[in-house]
């Protein structure tokens, strides 16, 4: 009998104690959660207050920007009109100039292809002597030139003077570095009586 009473009291006490402990624990946690949610609600109110500025502000900016963007072409047109009005324009000739191609005129080769030379067919008055020939460009003798063999190597430095007094050196600078042409000039100079050898 006594044991049953004690057990009953223990059960009731355990139930009450368990409920009390757990409910206190849950209450503490829920209170903390409530405080956090209250802080979050405050943050949300701040966000709403900040977001309320976005809509009207962006709408205002969009409207004003549209007006500015629409007015800019008008300003451009007026500025171009000012530039066109300020820039001096030369008076237009009464007789318009003949239109010429922008690329210029090209010398015709048709006459020269058939052997016609306009400078030879020029006529002069009978009592006037023909104009003198244009002075020829004097050939300057170069002191030396360098002939090359077929391999392009330099053979030696030669000075070649023809018997008629025409120096061959005037032609030698035209020698291309190709060995065949160089040797041909070399043979031509030898056949013309040039003295080829080391000076």
């Amino acid at each position, binding site marked *: 009998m006594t044991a049953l009473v004690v057990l009953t009291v223990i059960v009731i006490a355990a139930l009450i104690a368990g409920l009390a402990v757990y409910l206190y624990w*849950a209450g503490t946690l829920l209170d903390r959660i409530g405080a*956090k949610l209250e802080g979050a609600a405050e943050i949300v109110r701040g966000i709403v207050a900040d977001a309320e500025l976005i809509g009207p502000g962006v709408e*205002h900016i969009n409207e004003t920007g549209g007006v500015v963007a629409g007015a800019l072409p008008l300003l451009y047109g007026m500025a171009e009109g000012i530039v066109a009005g300020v820039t001096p324009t030369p008076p237009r000739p009464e007789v318009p100039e003949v239109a010429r191609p922008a690329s210029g005129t090209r010398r015709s080769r048709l006459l020269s292809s058939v052997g016609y030379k306009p400078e030879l067919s020029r006529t002069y008055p009978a009592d006037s002597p023909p104009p003198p020939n244009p002075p020829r460009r004097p050939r300057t003798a170069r002191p030396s030139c360098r002939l090359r063999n077929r391999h392009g190597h330099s053979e030696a430095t030669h000075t070649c003077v023809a018997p008629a007094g025409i120096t061959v050196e005037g032609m030698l600078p035209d020698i291309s570095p190709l060995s065949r042409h160089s040797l041909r000039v070399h043979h031509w100079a030898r056949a013309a009586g040039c003295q080829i050898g080391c000076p």
Partner: protein
Amino acid sequence: MNPTEHTLWVSVIIVGFVVVVAVAALLSLLIYLIKRIDGRVDTIGATLTAAKANTAETVLIPQVATGVDAVLAEGLQHHLFLGRVLGKVKS
């Protein structure tokens, strides 16, 4: 106390212990769920704090709108100036 009453009392005591254990289990589950809610609330608070930091700069939007208005006013002045100059140049 007859045996029937004794048996009933013992049975009630056993049921009482079972109820105590069940209540403890259910309250433990309640505590677990409350802790989960607490963690989620922490996450929500951090997200809201970041959002608040992002939207804190929206105060500049009205200032930008005021600046754009100033640009428009200056553009109108340019328009008037160019209109006057264009009339003089063309004349």
